[in-house]
């Protein structure tokens, strides 16, 4: 790293180091985004009868989908971090509990988990559908995130721990001040993928009669028989949301890139 480059970094016109992903104006992401937007606009312009009505019908569904998604993401990050730390803990008991949790949850389909929490446990505890949805998503994705966190933490060179410990950090401080901040970089891309997978999987919660985007669409379709139009629109809306989400993730990745 020489001084010239350091000065360049302060200039605000784009990143100093061009990333290999960015190849000018034509990227798959842009083409997809513009394609999806154009399709929606054209459909609404040329056939407003079903399409515009669908657009008016689904916003509250989109809102519910977002609520479930972001609540589940926030909670599953916490659960994932705890699980990840548990999986590398020295305490045998903690390690075993975390490992069993991951093993069990990864072996049961999310749809079955949703049914289980809502209908099976409903015989004993009454969980409202929205909460059951968030709970199931959190438990399921917490296990996946736990593995991501574990792999990320394990990818940091052991020398880092040794250096921090010899500087007088205790084990907890080492983990939170030295290891995890560095692991974040490795962790972010897979976590971003989990976010997007989670958003798409929220469509499963419509089975609990949670009025999310998919259920709203289905209600509209069964009422008007406009199946093709409704599901086309629903697919496009999901696509738009995931595109925006994936862009957010890649922007965060850019921000975290170390400047060599």
């Amino acid at each position, binding site marked *: 790293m020489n001084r010239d480059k350091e000065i360049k970094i302060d200039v605000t016109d784009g990143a100093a180091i061009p990333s290999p992903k960015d190849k000018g104006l034509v990227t798959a992401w842009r083409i997809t985004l513009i394609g999806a937007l154009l399709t929606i606009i054209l459909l609404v312009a040329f056939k407003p009868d079903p399409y515009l009505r669908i657009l008016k019908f689904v916003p509250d569904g989109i809102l519910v989908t977002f609520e479930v998604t972001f609540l589940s993401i926030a909670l599953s990050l916490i659960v994932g971090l705890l699980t990840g730390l548990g999986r590398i803990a020295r305490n045998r008991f903690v390690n075993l509990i975390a490992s069993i949790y991951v093993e069990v949850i990864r072996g049961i389909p999310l749809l079955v988990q949703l049914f289980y929490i809502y209908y099976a446990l409903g015989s004993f505890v009454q969980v409202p559908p929205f909460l059951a949805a968030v709970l199931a998503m959190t438990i399921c994705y917490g296990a996946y995130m736990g593995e991501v966190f574990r792999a990320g933490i394990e990818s940091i060179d052991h020398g880092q721990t040794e250096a921090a410990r010899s500087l007088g950090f205790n084990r907890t401080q080492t983990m939170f001040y030295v290891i995890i901040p560095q692991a974040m970089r490795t962790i972010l891309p897979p976590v971003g993928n989990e976010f997007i997978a989670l958003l798409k999987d929220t469509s499963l919660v419509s089975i609990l009669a949670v*009025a999310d985007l998919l259920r709203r669409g289905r209600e509209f379709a*069964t009422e008007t*028989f406009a199946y093709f139009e409704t599901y086309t629109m629903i697919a496009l809306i999901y696509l738009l949301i995931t595109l925006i989400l994936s862009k957010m993730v890649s922007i965060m990745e850019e921000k975290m890139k170390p400047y060599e």
Partner: protein
Amino acid sequence: MFKKFFMLMAFCLIFSQTALARTIVFAVDATWPPMEFVNEDKEIVGYSIDYMKAAAKEAGFTPVFKNTAWDGIFAGLAGGNYDAICSSVSITPERKKAMDFSEPYFKVSQGLVVPKESKAKSLEDMKGKVVGAQIGTTGYFAVKKVPGVVAKSYDEIGLAMQDLLNGRIDGVVCDDPVAAQYALREPKFSEKLKIGAIIDSGDEYYGIAVKKGNKEVLDLINKGIRAVKAKGIEKQIKEKWFGSN
């Protein structure tokens, strides 16, 4: 040569429709007891099923019942996945635009199922409360029509009843034979639930839905239904499934 071939084809067609029993595939959402449901031997049974089997015997076709999820059952008919829907389909003007209906085979009202301690006597009494129904059914549309009542759509009526039993919602609206099945006959449900009101939705009837313009299938089914009514077989089937009430 061609003439001969066509003659043969025509002969085959005529022959197959008369002597050989034609197969008609019916889509059934078998989650609607006692009208149509899956029994413990995994067979699709119920009032509608017996009715159609009797009609088939009279009209001379072979019925095949295919279990299909309600949500999308009409899309499958339009797409030609099956010939007809025999699944307690209420004949409504909106549906008539999208498909053809046979003659009605059952008169139906909507029943409001509520917990035993509830004082509701009509749908209007449910203002500010959550009422469940199956997605895309006349019951669900009836709930949605009443201002102030929160409508909640379920994939299957059984799931709505389960939620009502667990106290997550305040009522369920469905066709009255189904309401009677849950509120009066199913032991687990009838202990805690009752029929709070019968909502008269005008003259509502069940019919067999057929793809628009499929006259051949429609005529066969109608022939069967007429014969079942005329010969008094309908009464026997009613007694079998509904007893004397």
